[in-house]
C-alpha cells in the first residue's frame, strides 16, 4: 500500500491543561503515544476527553503544559501546521464537494500536482472501499459511507497521527461493529498512531492497545484493555468499566486476605488499593454466579434471557441490589445463593 504514515517516534503530552473561565476542563494530562499505537481516551460525557482531543488537534489552545512530536513543540502551532488527520463525530464532510474533492482537499491545500492527487485519492478510496462513489456528493451517501469518506480524507495526507472523535456514535449497531473492524484494519495498514475518543467501553476495549480513562478532566488510569477490564485502579473507574455491583461495605484484613460483608454474608476479596475499615466493593455481574452452597443468599427480582445466559437482578437480605449472570434459568421470586471468586471481588478505598 502506498499510503503510509509519516515517520516519527512518539507524541508526548506533558501535563496539558485547559480552562474555560472558572471551569477546569482538562487538568494536567500526560501521555506518550508511540508510533503505530492505538490509544483510546475513554470517559463519561463531559469528562474532558473531547477537550483533550481538540487540544492535541490544535482546535483548542492549551492553557498549560506542552505537546511534543519527537523534538518539535506543537502546542503553539495552529491546526493547519500540525499535520494531523481528524475524523469528526458528524463527519464534517464538505457538502458542496464530491467525494473525490473532499478526499483530495488536504492534497490540494499542499499544492500537489493533479496527477499525484488523483492517484492518491484513488488509493485512499480503495482503502475504504468507496471507489464507485467518487463522484457523488456527501448528501447522497449513507452514514457509514460518509464515515468512510471522512476517514479517507483524514488519512490521504499520510498524517503521523489520526484523531477520532466518537466516530461511530452516529451509526446504527450493526454498522458500528463493521466500521470498528474497518478502523482497526486501516490503522494497522497505515502504521499511523490513532487517538480515539469514546464513551463506549466496549469500543475502547476492542480497538485500543492502550486506554486512558478520564474522569473530571483528569487521568484516572492508563493501561491495557485487559488491565482496565479486570483490574480497574479506582472504584470510579470500576463503575465506568461495567462493575455493576458497587457498594459500600465494612472490610477486615485477615490472614486469608480481605473479608468484606455482602448482604449479611462474608466474602473474600482482593484489595486494589490501601483499604481502611470501610471499603467499596466492586463485582462484575459476569463474576457473580449462583452456586449451591454459595455464601450470599438473595431473592431474584428480574431475569432477562440473553441467549447464552440469563442476566438477573436479585435483592440480598439487607436490601442490596445484586446483578448477576446465570447459565441456568432463574425465575423471579426464586432464592439463589451467590458466590464470586476471591480474585474477582475487588476492594477499593471508600
Amino acid at each position: 500500500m502506498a499510503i503510509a504514515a509519516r515517520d516519527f517516534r512518539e507524541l508526548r503530552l506533558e501535563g496539558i491543561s485547559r480552562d474555560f473561565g472558572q471551569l477546569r476542563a482538562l487538568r494536567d494530562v500526560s501521555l506518550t503515544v508511540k508510533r503505530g499505537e492505538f490509544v483510546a481516551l475513554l470517559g463519561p460525557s463531559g469528562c474532558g476527553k473531547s477537550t483533550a482531543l481538540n487540544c492535541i488537534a490544535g482546535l483548542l489552545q492549551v492553557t498549560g503544559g506542552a505537546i511534543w512530536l519527537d523534538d518539535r513543540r506543537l502546542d503553539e502551532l495552529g491546526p493547519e501546521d500540525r499535520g494531523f488527520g481528524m475524523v469528526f463525530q458528524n463527519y464534517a464532510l464538505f457538502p458542496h464537494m464530491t467525494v473525490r474533492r473532499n478526499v483530495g482537499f488536504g492534497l490540494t491545500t499542499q499544492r500537489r500536482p493533479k496527477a499525484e492527487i488523483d492517484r492518491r485519492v484513488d488509493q485512499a478510496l480503495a482503502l475504504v472501499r468507496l471507489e464507485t462513489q467518487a463522484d457523488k456528493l456527501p448528501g447522497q451517501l449513507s452514514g457509514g459511507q460518509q464515515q468512510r469518506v471522512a476517514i479517507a480524507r483524514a488519512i490521504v495526507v499520510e498524517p503521523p497521527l489520526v484523531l477520532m472523535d466518537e466516530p461511530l456514535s452516529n451509526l446504527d449497531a450493526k454498522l458500528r461493529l463493521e466500521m470498528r473492524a474497518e478502523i482497526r484494519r486501516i490503522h494497522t495498514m497505515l502504521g499511523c498512531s490513532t487517538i480515539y475518543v469514546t464513551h463506549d467501553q466496549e469500543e475502547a476495549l476492542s480497538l485500543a492497545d492502550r486506554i486512558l480513562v478520564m474522569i473530571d478532566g483528569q487521568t484516572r488510569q492508563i493501561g491495557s484493555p485487559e488491565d482496565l477490564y479486570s483490574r480497574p485502579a479506582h472504584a470510579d473507574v470500576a463503575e465506568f468499566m461495567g462493575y455493576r455491583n458497587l457498594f459500600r461495605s465494612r472490610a477486615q484484613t485477615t490472614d486469608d486476605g480481605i473479608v468484606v460483608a455482602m448482604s449479611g454474608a462474608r466474602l473474600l476479596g482482593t484489595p486494589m488499593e490501601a483499604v481502611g475499615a470501610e471499603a467499596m466493593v466492586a463485582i462484575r455481574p459476569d463474576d457473580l454466579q449462583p452456586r449451591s452452597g454459595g455464601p450470599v443468599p438473595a431473592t431474584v427480582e428480574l431475569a432477562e434471557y440473553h441467549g447464552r445466559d440469563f442476566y438477573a437482578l436479585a435483592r440480598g437480605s439487607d436490601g442490596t441490589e445484586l446483578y448477576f449472570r446465570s447459565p441456568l434459568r432463574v425465575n423471579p421470586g426464586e432464592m439463589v445463593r451467590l458466590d464470586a471468586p476471591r480474585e474477582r471481588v475487588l476492594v477499593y478505598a471508600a
Partner: protein
Amino acid sequence: MSGAQLSLRRRLRERGLDSVTLLVLPGVLFVLVLFVYPFLYGLVLSFTPKEGGGWLANYRRFFSDPFLYDTIWLTLQIAVPATLLNTLLSVPVALRVRLMKRQKLLTTILVIPITLGTVMVAEGLLTYLGPRGWLNRVLLEFGIAGSPVRLIHNYWGVMLSLVISGFPFTFLLTLSYVTGIDPALEQAGAMLGARARERFFRILLPLLAPGLAITLALAFVQAFTVFPSAVLLGAPAGPTRVISIVAYQAAFEQYDYPLASAIAMLMALVQVIIIAGLLGARTLLFRGPVSTGKG
C-alpha cells in the same frame, strides 16, 4: 354518499389537498386584493395614457425624455453600490459575530436602525452631518478640513442612509446563513492544512453563495425603491433624482396616474431583471444542506 365522491376526495387527499388546504384561502384573497388587482390595474392604466397618442405613449414618453429615462441609470448608480457594500460588509462582520459571546447584544445594537425607520435616521444624519453638525465642527476645530465637508443633500447622503438602514438587514440575513454552516467544516479544513483565506474561499464562500444571492436580491429591491432618504438627504432635483421620485412627481404633482403607473412598471421590470439574473446565477451554485452528518 356515492363511491365516486369518496374516491374523488381520496384522490385529492393523495395530492395533498384536503380541508386543511382551505386555510390558504384568506391568504390567496389577501394577495389578490392587495397585490394582483392593484398590479393589473396599474398595468392596464399604464397603457391608457392621459393625453392619448396610442397605448404605448407613456412608455414612449419615458424613453424619449432623458430627464425621465436617466433616472433608471441614476437609481442603479445608488442602489447597486449600496447593495454590494451592505452585503460585502455583512459577510466579515457576520463571520466575526458568529464567534462572539455577546452576540445578542451586538445584534440588538445593529438592528436598532431598522426599528428607527428611514425618516428618523435621515433626520439624525441631517443634524449630525450638516455644515454645522458635530462632524464638521470637529473636523474644522482640529483643522482636518478647511471648509465643511458636504455629506448631505448629495449622493453621499443617500448612500450613507442606505448603508445605515440597509446594513442591519443584510447583516441579519447573512448572520443566519453563516450560523447555519457547521463550524466543524472549517475545523476540518484547518486540520487538512487550509489557512483562513483558503477556508473562506473553498468552504465558507461556496456554501454562503446561494444565501448571499438572496441577500443581494432583497437588499437591491430595498435600495432601488429608495424614496424618503433620496428626498431628505439627497438632492432630489439633481444627482439623487431616483426613479421613485419621478413616479411620485408624475402621480402627485402632475396628476398623471397613467404615466406614474408606467414608471412603476418599469421599476418593477428593472428589479425583476436583476433578481432573475441573481437567482439564475444561484441555480449554478450548490444549494444542498450546509451541514453534514446523518440526515
